[in-house]
């Protein structure tokens, strides 16, 4: 019989233009390829996450995909109560014999776009705009800065966060304002990791004739000619693969950290940014990419020591 599958988004919702959306695209692709459908739910608070997961588990789901680190504790708890149900946690690590935790090496992808960014920059001043000041966002920023500085010693990185409440993910005006202010300080390439607020950043970059870097999904097409590249986080693949493994009976519990090598993160090069990426940049980025995959270049993960070397 077909496996019974479910996916639970976090507070951002499945249309967040960010990781939830990416996950839903993966699930949709699975459905298209296999004709196996799945249930969808959204949990707006930590209490609800538990409620949803438990509700789904009671329906004897085979696999529940939980999107976002906010569900970590809920998954851990419910997985213990329902040993027969299997869980995939995206972006967080939960213990349990029936849990597969998938995290991403955001620092590696960010490193790549940092390299591309600094090469495309004339002023060698790069901008970074995060949503809230939390370790995950700092990991992006830290990888980005490492890439930039390793490529050009003169590189400077300006960082700003949008805010401190969840409103910070939905404040495009502030996202745009931060970009403007960075541009006025000489920045000409800006990397936005701020959910909906990042849309404001990309938009402003386009308006001011500067370059921007998208995040999570491939955002190159939003403003062709202005979005230099995107740091894609293949949550869609992670979800798709998990569902597929479930169908094929190859699913395994454990902890997976997906980097460049595992196809978890990458930079995006397509027809929308083809003109912006000079052969020189492309060559350099591809070289660095290979070095990271080969282990010749080590990118430091902010989260391991809660500090950034650059």
């Amino acid at each position, binding site marked *: 019989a077909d496996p019974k599958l479910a996916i639970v988004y976090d507070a951002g919702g499945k*249309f967040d233009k960010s990781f939830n959306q990416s996950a839903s695209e993966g699930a949709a692709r699975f459905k298209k390829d296999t004709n196996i459908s799945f249930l969808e739910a959204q949990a707006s608070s930590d209490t609800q996450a538990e409620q949803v997961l438990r509700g789904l588990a009671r329906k004897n789901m085979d696999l529940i995909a939980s999107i976002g680190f906010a569900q970590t504790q809920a998954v851990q708890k419910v997985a213990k109560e329902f040993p027969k149900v299997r869980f995939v946690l995206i972006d967080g690590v939960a213990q349990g014999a029936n849990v597969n935790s998938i995290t991403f090496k955001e620092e590696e992808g960010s490193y790549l776009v940092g390299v591309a960014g600094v090469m495309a920059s004339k002023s060698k001043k790069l901008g970074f705009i995060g949503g809230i000041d939390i370790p995950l966002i700092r990991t992006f920023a830290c990888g980005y800065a490492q890439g930039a500085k390793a490529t050009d010693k003169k590189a400077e990185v300006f960082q700003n966060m949008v805010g401190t409440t969840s409103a910070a993910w939905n404040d495009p005006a502030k996202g745009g304002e931060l970009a403007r202010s960075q541009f006025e300080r000489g920045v000409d390439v800006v990397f936005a990791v701020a959910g909906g607020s990042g849309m404001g950043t990309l938009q402003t970059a386009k308006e001011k004739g500067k370059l921007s870097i998208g995040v999570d999904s491939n955002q190159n097409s939003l403003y062709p000619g202005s979005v230099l590249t995107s740091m894609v986080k293949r949550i869609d693949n992670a979800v798709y693969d998990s569902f597929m493994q479930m169908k094929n009976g190859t699913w395994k519990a454990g902890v997976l950290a997906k980097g460049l090598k595992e196809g978890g993160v990458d930079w995006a090069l397509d027809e929308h940014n083809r003109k912006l990426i000079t052969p020189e940049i492309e060559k350099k980025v591809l070289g660095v990419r290979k070095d990271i995959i080969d282990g010749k270049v080590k990118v430091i993960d902010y989260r391991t020591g809660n500090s950034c070397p650059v």
Partner: protein
Amino acid sequence: MTFEDLHIGSILVSTVRNAPVLIFAAMAGLFAERSGVIDIGLEGKILASAFVSAAVAFATQNPWYGVAAGVAVSVALATLQGYVSITQKGNQLVAGIAINIAMSGLTFVVAQFFFQQGGRTPDLGQARLFDVVLPGSAAIVDVPFVGWLYTKLIGGHSVLVYLAFALVPLVHWVLYHTRFGLRLRACGENPHAADAAGVSVEWTRYKAMLIAGVLCSFSGAYLAIVQSGFFLRDMSAGAGYLALTAMVFGNWRPLYTFFGCLMFGFFGAVQIQIEGVDLPVVGRIPGSLIQMVPYVVTVIVLAGLMAKSVAPKAIGVPFVKSR
């Protein structure tokens, strides 16, 4: 340190861009509250007009239709608020909060229904309001300081920015030098006196609410079709409450309220500049603490000024003819 290092220029330009959202809303609140109606529903009106102006601008590909539609919706909400507060004599705070909550939900639901993008409208693209380039900008842009002043600080903004700044003297004039303003203030201070003088308190308050609706809509339109270029759920992000604060800060007077708005805009801009910078003495302040700079400053200023703010006396009290 040079002018450039301090980024004062950038801070000032940023202040000018940040302020209109607050100025429009605060001036709207000023009209409502000087007439005696508490307007804690600014937030909801901003949000509704932001959504409708973005949606209509997108659908018609004409920003001005968007602005007009935003005005219509915000006025409708203000009228509803007026009906509840003035005619029904209901609790004005409840009415305002109800509108805020309802709009937070409804804008999402409608946006989702029409655009299926998670409560977002599509990008407006060409249907945005673009910045005005003042005549002669190209010639003067490279002149030191003057070029910056003319093309960046004074020029290079959207029409709505100029409207916001022009509004302040206008509001002052209306409030203090017209018949309507006189009656409005009388209704907010002592509606019984206004009534005894033959002024219709209810009608005056309705007029004030209508004006509040119109002004507030510009705040939403500015947010959606000038600053962002699309609508996003809850994108007002507390602007209505901040505007209200600026108004209390300004003691319900247009000019001081305007300074309050500028202050919020200014500290917002300063906060951007000092994030991640090594400051003398304190060193590098974590981003999350820098975020609270404008708020802490407001508290200190209010406490330090001993600003015993004098609200309009009759504010929040429905007008009932009796002793």
